[in-house]
């Protein structure tokens, strides 16, 4: 996901502020274009999807609302990486799938799929911190770390999924009216869009 998409996502999530958000999003992209993908078709196996589902579920777990696996985020990630990523990010993502598993083997002596939920959370918390530190040191034009890509896709996929939008958040397809000021109390869910 490039900067524009990241910002567009913010705009999407800002809901009623989309006009205001666009005002400062527009025009930020010249020079930010990515090379077109020209390589061979990228494929993901069912095992890959299951693995990505577990990564996503670790990032956004089931609580009193469904988690990322119920939202089929693993599959969503594969579609997005195939269709919406350039080759460079595709490679980072695919290599990252292996690196994440290697990290699990190194830390726990077993694959990510064999690790338990607690171990998975511990591992991804660590990797999340590493990717954050790497981003803090990186130049703006540097690619994002693989785990940042996975995390962004998980959050985008989950909160725009049916369970994410309607169960974890609030979603009204056709609001029918606009009210600029309505009461809000702590704990009320945010609008999905």
């Amino acid at each position: 996901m490039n900067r524009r998409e990241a910002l567009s996502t913010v705009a999407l999530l800002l809901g009623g502020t989309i006009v205001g958000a666009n005002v400062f999003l527009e025009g930020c992209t010249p020079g930010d274009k990515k090379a077109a993908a020209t390589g061979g078709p990228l494929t993901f196996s069912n095992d890959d999807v299951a693995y990505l589902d577990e990564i996503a579920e670790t990032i956004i777990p089931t609580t009193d609302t469904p988690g990322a696996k119920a939202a089929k985020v693993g599959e969503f990630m594969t579609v997005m990486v195939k269709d919406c990523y350039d080759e460079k990010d595709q490679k980072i993502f695919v290599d990252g799938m292996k690196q994440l598993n290697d990290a699990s083997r190194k830390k726990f002596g077993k694959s990510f799929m064999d690790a338990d939920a607690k171990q998975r959370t511990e591992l991804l918390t660590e990797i999340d911190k590493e990717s954050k530190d790497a981003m803090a040191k990186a130049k703006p034009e540097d690619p994002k770390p693989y785990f940042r890509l996975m995390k962004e896709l998980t959050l985008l996929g989950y909160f725009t999924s049916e369970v994410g939008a309607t169960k974890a958040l609030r979603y009204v397809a056709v609001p029918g009216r606009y009210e600029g000021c309505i009461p809000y109390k702590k704990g009320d869910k945010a609008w999905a869009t």
Partner: protein
Amino acid sequence: MPQDSLNINGNAAQQNTYDAIVVGSGISGGWAAKELCEKGLKTLVLERGRNIEHIKDYTDTTKDPWELKHHNSITEEDRKNCPIQSRIYAYDEVSKHFFVNDLENPYNQVKPFDWIRGYHVGGRSLLWGRQCYRWSDLDFEANLKDGHGVDWPIRYKDIEPWYDYVEPFVGISGSREGLSQLPDGKFLPPMEMNCLEKHVAARIKENFNDRVMIIGRSANHTQKVGDRGPCQYRNKCQQGCPFGGYFSSNSATLPAAMKTNNLTLRPFSIVMGVIYDKEKKRAKGVRIMDSETRKTEDYFAKIIFLNASTLGTTSILLNSVSDAFPEGLGNSSGQVGHNLMDHHYGVGAYGSFDGFEDQYFYGRRPNGVYIPRFRNVNDKTKRSDYLRGFGYQGGAGRGRPWIADGVGVSLKEQLLEPGKWNMGVGSWGEHLPYFENKVTINKDKRDKWGMPTLDIDCEFKENEKTMRKDMMNSAAEMLEKAGLKEVNTYDNMPAPGFCIHEMGTARMGRDPKTSVLNGNNQMHDVKNVFITDGSCMSSSACQNPSVTYMALTARAADFAMKELKKGNL
């Protein structure tokens, strides 16, 4: 009508002769069609793209995000086919079929210029930002006063009745403010500001005696307009509205034209040129190429309205070469293609606000707030460093944090509730008319239909660049005085064209030696040709231009009809 013509109306006119031809079906062409048809003229509307039927062809707009393959994200293929179009905010997984394929519709950027296009019935009226602001004499007198461009041949009093005429049909929501530089119109009830916007509006009023912040004036209908609307606050306008909640040619003017039984709409019709009759000194008709069959065909009429969009119309004029007009139809002044303007924007400020934690909003308002021009409006607000002025559009909201540190339950919990309120304002500034900002046709580089492509050579200059500093700093100053925190400024400096307000390449003026059109949008040189899209503009002002094109179109159609009756055309 030939077999390959799609005659939507069913009332085939005899052979290829009509009373009037309108080239283009976008926001101004739709108005020309409606007005001419309602005056009883058999009117042929030529559209280079495919047909888009209101509602029926707004594919996928009723889908929820999760029903779209990429949840409304754009793909690498989109970026490859539409490297220019796909950077526009309105380009999404659903709306993308309303934008041209850049690879199939090339043009040449002598200097960077983003040409955003929608080739289909309705044109960019389906995609527009819907903001509607009248001009005032501050704008119509500007060229005369500072000497840039040529004097507008009209003043506010000339266009005022036509704003009055078009606005109730368009259906514009807005508030009456009594501002001389931004005259009130015939409005539907205004949309509501949210808590933070109300707060900021009040603080701006307190802190600045020369400016106000008002709700945007938008062609989103807050009440039913005929059988259209009202707006359902989905904020998906660019995808086409199944509720008819905003004005477009497809929802409004073309159906009105069709109702008269005088309209014939011919999609897939690329106008190659206007056919000129040297003896009568009138245009006879137009030559088209069917974009599907590549067959050429001639259509004839007493009057011709060119509404193919600024650069489309300019291209047609420059391609209409004859003995009488070797440099393009009606181009004895040499001004056709020159004085290209856009608005310069993509500059402003944003910040967050501590407070209103117990307030939220309902619905997705497809409209923001507006801060009308406050620079160079009178002696007190005169700037020494630049000419003309700018306005702001913006909005406040309460965003949800979209990412946070960590993973798991704590991460999820941080992302479920709205965060702080925030607000941004961005500025739209006037672009002076410079003769050297121009478009020419390139016969060596042709498109897939064999038509010459356009060389576009346009830039912002010192006046715009100097103005931008004030646009940015004044935005931050207002937000800070309004109590916003963490105020940041930005200046993305998009290339000309990216604001999608390109205009000025067949300007109106008083003198045929220095302008292309007279005060009635009639070509000085060819009296039965009228141009009422953005190319007619003598200056750009800083307001969004569409409602002015609409008013000028209705006014020109009225004039054309009177001239026709007098036997002058």
